[in-house]
């Protein structure tokens, strides 16, 4: 038996291909949306991977440092370092802001890293060009997604930094590229006020009789000094010694230091389950809407194509064609449309959308397989209306009268 669907498609291949391309663009957007969600999850995991920490010690009862603000005294790390099972501890600060380079600015996550070496938690694990930060101030390592180059001079608050190294795929959970600077500079950047505000703050302190007493000559200077520095960091990143359980060490820190401590899996849960949860829901909604729109388009196209063949279907039924042969013809056409659409969609998502989209788009092969199965399922379900219309055609219509 010849393939009626195949012959019909070959007879009107231009209409089919163009319809498939239109559908494919929609499928391409759908696949890209899934890729954006995967990219967000991957960004979150990369953020955790690149920090190379086993534990995140943060302010008590907060979800810091990524999902909520958190501040610890900068010397907290010393007491944590002395605890059993702790190999290394490093302070870290995170601040998302606009980083300026001459006339343009880039949104970036400024990461303040403690003095150390490339293996210190919080440091960029590898560079694609240049070197790590070696000075205590005014050097930066930037992700290449910022568009900065080696030797560029950046402005963060009032200070200027020279880019000495470039890294890749170092991004925040929101996809903002990272710029690493020395910890002291980052603390200052978090705290630093403009000159007018500093001047006003000093005036207010001087005017306060509690801080400016004649009998305590050094008090005012001490208060002003404490007001103009930032002794806080956002978190302490901990690496544990081999042979110790992360959960046990975390529990010990919680108990004795009265701080909140997250393990890798808990932090992953916070990032994926809370920080990007809203975005994931929005993307999920878009996916559902796009799937419904795709289904409606396929249903409409197949229905229209079927209505255009009502007379032929009546003749086919009159000369003895089985209903299942006619239904199979419609389903096969819907599937063919889905296959054309999926191939076009996959190419569009891979070659055109992912490279130019401003966020990281991760197109996983398994998602493509799932997407293909869903597209075919939608096409088969969408053809139901057309099949119903075809099966209702009365063979007597071919005779007329």
């Amino acid at each position: 038996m010849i393939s009626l669907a195949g012959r019909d498609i070959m007879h009107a291949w231009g209409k089919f291909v163009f319809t498939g391309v239109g559908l494919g663009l929609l499928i391409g957007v759908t696949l890209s949306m899934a890729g954006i969600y995967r990219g967000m999850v991957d960004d979150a995991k990369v953020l955790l991977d690149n920090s190379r920490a086993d534990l995140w010690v943060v302010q008590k009862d907060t979800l810091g440092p990524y999902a909520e603000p958190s501040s610890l005294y900068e010397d907290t790390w010393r007491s944590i370092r002395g605890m059993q099972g702790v190999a290394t501890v490093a302070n870290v600060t995170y601040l998302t802001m606009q980083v300026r380079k001459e006339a343009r600015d880039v949104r970036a996550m400024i990461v303040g890293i403690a003095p150390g070496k490339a293996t210190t938690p919080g440091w960029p694990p590898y560079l694609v060009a240049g070197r790590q930060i070696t000075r205590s101030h005014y050097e930066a390592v930037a992700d290449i997604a910022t568009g900065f180059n080696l030797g560029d001079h950046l402005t963060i608050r009032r200070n200027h930094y020279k880019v000495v190294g470039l890294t890749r795929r170092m991004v925040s959970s929101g996809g903002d590229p990272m710029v690493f600077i020395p910890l002291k500079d980052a603390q200052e950047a978090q705290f630093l006020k403009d000159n007018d505000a500093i001047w006003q703050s000093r005036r207010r302190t001087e005017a306060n009789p509690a801080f400016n007493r004649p009998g305590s000559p050094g008090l005012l200077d001490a208060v002003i000094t404490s007001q103009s520095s930032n002794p806080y960091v956002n978190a302490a990143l901990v690496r544990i010694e081999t042979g110790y359980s992360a959960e046990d060490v975390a529990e010990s820190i919680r108990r004795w230091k009265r701080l909140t401590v997250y393990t890798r899996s808990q932090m992953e849960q916070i990032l994926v389950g809370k920080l990007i949860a809203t975005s994931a829901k929005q993307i999920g909604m878009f996916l559902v809407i796009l799937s419904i729109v795709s289904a409606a388009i396929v249903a409409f196209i197949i229905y229209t194509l079927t209505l255009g063949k009502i007379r032929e279907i009546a003749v086919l039924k009159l000369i003895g064609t089985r209903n299942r042969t006619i239904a199979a013809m419609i389903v096969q056409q819907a599937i063919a449309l889905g296959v054309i659409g999926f191939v076009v969609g996959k190419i569009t998502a891979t070659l055109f959308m992912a490279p130019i989209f401003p966020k990281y788009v991760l197109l996983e092969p398994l998602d493509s397989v799932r997407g293909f199965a869903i597209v075919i399922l939608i096409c088969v379900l969408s053809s139901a209306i057309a099949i119903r219309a075809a099966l209702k055609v009365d063979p007597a219509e071919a005779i007329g009268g």
Partner: protein
Amino acid sequence: MNSKGIRIENLKKRYGSGDTAVYALKDVNMHVAPGEVVGLIGPSGSGKSTLLKCLGAVIDPTAGRMILGNEIIYDQGWKVRDLRALRRDKIGFVFQAPYLIPFLDVTDNVALLPMLAGVPNGEARAKALELLTALDVQHRAGAMPSQLSGGEQQRVAIARGLVNRPPVILADEPTAPLDSERAMAVIRILNDMARKFETAIIVVTHDEKIIPTFKRIYHIRDGVTHEEAGEGRKFE
């Protein structure tokens, strides 16, 4: 198998019921022998199309009897289980417009019926080509329907109606869209094929040009058939 052609006895068809009942066919009696071509004529609304639909097993008669070849196919109810197979294997259709499947070439339009009956593609195409040769359209075997003239399309449609060698062919105004010359050609072909394949052919027509060619004519008026002799004029 075709020894008796088709016989219709006291066929009735009622639409609706009770006060609104309308008899489209009140008393239809016909007999068409194998190899014979008869005309079925009547004014609009006389019941021609309803009769054709009943004969084509597309709608159910209300009462009466239909015998196809040696087999009673209807006697106060259908006696065949699979009406679709009955239409496919034992009744050929030729329509007013050819209604060829636009996405199949000429050969496959004709070969489709045997293929639907389970005949292998090669064998079905060979049967189709044999008929296309008999109807002198073999040179258009690979063409699409849209590339054929009206007369060629109608000859292909006749080939499709004949391909399963049915005992009866129902032709619904087969010459309506054709000029005199082509209309006569189609009637000649139908007569030739009826003789060649021992097929009983019923031609429903309004066409004054072809009515004189029938040896027997059934007039249908108000759902009742009346048989009369035709002129049986020879073809040019």
